[in-house]
């Protein structure tokens, strides 16, 4: 689709749910008419019909004018569709642990589920069995460039192992990186010519922060409509339209992604992205460690065995149990997943902080907006102020599949207000000295000024409605870090459903180790954002 038509649909098919929306041209520009989501497997036509029915009910004239006035008519509108599949599996193999670590780290951010294998000291039968496993979709083999002294004597063994795996499975895609990637070199010559699987020579994982290798690996998975790649494209377009730095934290059932997009005058947006299988809401290899990470964020009394069983139920029926305790459990799992995502993309922490953080993906959808805002603030912890938004219609990824960049920018410029639910603004401060009061805050908006005494270690939720702008005047007793080190700062903040979140908790977050005090603390923070939590 080069030029967006009068009415179109977006369809984002995930591994757990599918989200659809209808976009129509009204009043000289495109508007988001409505959106909904349903369990994967629900016919897209049924979901589109649900949206169409509501649009026709709310504004019959508009629906008629757009040609979606009649039942069934939405099924025929042009669609922009993205699809997110469960991450494929990649066996990353190197001679030594030291050589493997950067390989596996890069592969982990390219959307693959990584099985890490080391040749040195390993049982050769176990290695060969792992590489031949039918669940492995590709092999990444690498060595330092040039191979280090402790690698050289086993590089030939590594080459033989990988070549043997391709003889068992000729269709296996194989990537040779770093010291193994000499064109026409000894390792490449071990592979049979004319086999159906590709052999790709790739740069070392230490070149340019691993970005060239990551791009190659990312390109080897998913189809042309891959949802996570499309989301990164859409983030770049949104950054250009808004002229802001944007960070998208996307969490889905089978994986997560983090994208940082920066606008540069007169140039295309710079986009850095990482797609991490381990950042899934419920990773395929669900370990006790992951269970502990989720329990760490639970504000409700659920014992360990019961929590594990509830999470197993969620894995079997990811769209179910979305209200009450189920929603709280889901958001705890989303927090843990986002924390894993951020921990596995440390290279992005060194880039300039985003002005807007956007939550995207199915994991964030079934919770009240203020609870989602607080969840983002819990895990994305950097001194400074940033606006928070939610990709509520999950329309960003489908819009990213629009190949014509100009058309995509035009559509985004029309739609950006509709695409994001404003969750509010979060201000995070580092360098506070507990336990006494550290200063005051005066919020000046459209109503009377509001004054707040600032207590370290806590959060204040201040009502600034969506669409409203306010000035937050911070006066600290000692210099603190609010993105810059200062005692006095006035920040322009935008409102949202979560309002202004003044977050004076530790950066990074420190929670009590003991269960009960931690649960009480979390419940205290989260209670204002969940109506009826714990009832």
């Amino acid at each position: 689709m080069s030029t967006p038509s009068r009415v179109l649909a977006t369809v984002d098919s995930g591994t757990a749910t599918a989200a659809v929306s209808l976009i129509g041209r009204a009043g000289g520009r495109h508007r988001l008419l409505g959106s909904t989501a349903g369990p994967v497997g629900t016919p897209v036509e049924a979901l589109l019909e649900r949206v169409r029915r509501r649009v026709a009910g709310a504004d019959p004239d508009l629906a008629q004018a757009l040609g979606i006035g009649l039942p069934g008519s939405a099924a025929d509108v042009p669609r922009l569709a993205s699809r997110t599949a469960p991450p494929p599996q990649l066996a990353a193999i190197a001679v030594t642990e030291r050589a493997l670590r950067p390989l596996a780290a890069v592969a982990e951010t390219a959307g693959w589920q990584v099985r890490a294998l080391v040749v040195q000291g390993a049982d050769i039968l176990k290695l060969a069995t792992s590489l031949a496993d039918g669940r492995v979709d590709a092999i990444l083999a690498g060595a330092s460039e040039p191979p280090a002294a402790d690698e050289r004597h086993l590089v030939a063994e590594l080459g033989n192992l990988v070549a043997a795996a391709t003889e068992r499975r000729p269709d296996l895609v194989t990537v040779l990186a770093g010291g193994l990637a000499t064109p026409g070199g000894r390792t490449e010559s071990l592979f049979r010519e004319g086999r159906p699987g590709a052999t790709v020579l790739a740069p070392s994982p230490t070149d340019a922060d691993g970005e060239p290798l990551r791009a190659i690996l990312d390109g080897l998975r998913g189809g042309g409509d891959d949802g996570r790649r499309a989301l990164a494209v859409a983030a770049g377009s949104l950054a250009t339209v808004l002229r802001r730095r944007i960070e998208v934290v996307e969490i889905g059932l089978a994986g997560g992604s983090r994208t940082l997009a920066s606008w540069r005058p007169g140039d295309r947006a710079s986009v850095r992205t990482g797609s991490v299988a381990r950042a899934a809401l419920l990773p395929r290899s669900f370990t006790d460690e992951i269970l502990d990470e989720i329990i760490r964020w639970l504000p409700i009394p659920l014992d360990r065995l019961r929590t594990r069983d509830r999470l197993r139920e969620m894995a079997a029926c990811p769209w179910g149990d979305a209200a009450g305790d189920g929603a709280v459990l889901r958001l705890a799992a989303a927090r843990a997943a986002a924390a894993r995502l951020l921990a596995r993309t440390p290279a992005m922490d060194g880039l300039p902080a985003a002005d807007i953080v956007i939550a995207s993906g199915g994991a964030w959808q079934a919770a009240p907006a203020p609870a989602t805002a607080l969840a983002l603030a819990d895990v994305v912890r950097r001194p400074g102020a940033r606006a928070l938004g939610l990709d509520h219609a999950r329309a960003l990824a489908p819009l990213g599949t629009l190949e014509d960049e100009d058309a995509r920018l035009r559509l985004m410029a029309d739609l950006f207000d509709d695409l994001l639910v404003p969750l509010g603004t979060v201000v995070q401060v580092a360098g506070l000295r507990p336990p006494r009061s550290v200063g005051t805050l005066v919020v000046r908006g459209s109503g009377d000024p509001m004054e707040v005494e600032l207590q370290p270690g806590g959060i204040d939720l201040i009502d600034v409605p969506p669409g409203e702008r306010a000035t937050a005047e911070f006066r600290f007793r000692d210099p603190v870090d609010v993105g810059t080190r200062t005692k006095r700062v006035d920040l322009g903040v935008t409102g949202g459903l979560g309002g202004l979140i003044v977050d004076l908790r530790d950066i990074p977050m420190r929670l009590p180790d003991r269960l009960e005090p931690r649960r009480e603390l979390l419940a205290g923070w989260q209670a204002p954002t969940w109506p009826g939590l714990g009832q």
Partner: protein
Amino acid sequence: MAGAHVAGARPVTGEPATDWRDEIPRRALVEAGLETTVPLPPGDRPLVGPGTAVMPGDLLLEHVRDPRVDEVDVRLPEGERPLAGGRWAPVPGRRRHADRTADGELLVPVPGKATRWRLVTGDHRAPTTSAVSGIVTEVRPGAMIRLRVAGLALRGTLAAGATSRGRLELATDPFGELRPGGIDVGRTGSILVVGSRIDAEALTRARAMGVRGIIVAAIAGKDLRDFQASERRQRAALHMPEPFGVLALDGALRRPIATPVAALLERLAGHEVALLVNPPALVFDGSAIDLPEVGPDWVRVRSGPNLGAEGRVLEPAGLWRFAGGVHLEAARVQLDGEPSPVVLPLCDLERFG
């Protein structure tokens, strides 16, 4: 355009294109053409090839129980090259001391030695037979054998243990729970349907009594882990135990077996069935029974507070606010045994068909 699709062929009829009940997640009661895989790790010898038709009890592969790696000299005629995954056997009458080894599968060449290969072999080999009838669609040495199963399959959500076959017996009603004392040797060779839940102790007793499999609505994570640990110990023993599998139809939290599934299992009672582990499913001969019919408005609560309840869906209720301030699409449902309809999230419901 990568993701665009224009559905231009269908005329706008003016009639609803879909029934609103299509918005309720649908679960197939049975399915045909299921594919299952049998592990074929390096060293195991496949005894079938693509296209082979197999019946229950037919040999599929020879499993090496004590795999070890030997080194052998592989000499082939000029121009031929040995391949990993190929079979190798010593040349009769030309055994040298260094190659005094059994036959096996070529694993990987030894670096720096042109004709030297590592070979997976072993002394104890056990035949593995098929639990189902079907067609072999793929054989990947060192990985797996893939079979397209003949007959119909009832899918579960998880399975543990081994693929097995036996006579289906109903041990409890759909709401029941089987205690260890309720299993005796009279159940030998059977696959038991045990209702809503079973614990690890009852599972290990069932295995000891010669039961071939258990079908249950739910199994708690703790019991599953205990059973899997026990199963690993059994498999490590010198003598191969009889195959025993557990199939959980729904998940981890207690609930009765769904009425349509219970009706199907009742009709299968006394018939030979197979319990598959990968994927989790019960396979049976579809021609032997009439499948139960399920009304289009019959729904079951798949998750949430009314877990396991069943009833009839009446009408859509639109977007509804539920506990915790969460807004979800909902429907009005008349649950069995309840005096009046309740509003439930669509995503907590499932219907069979």
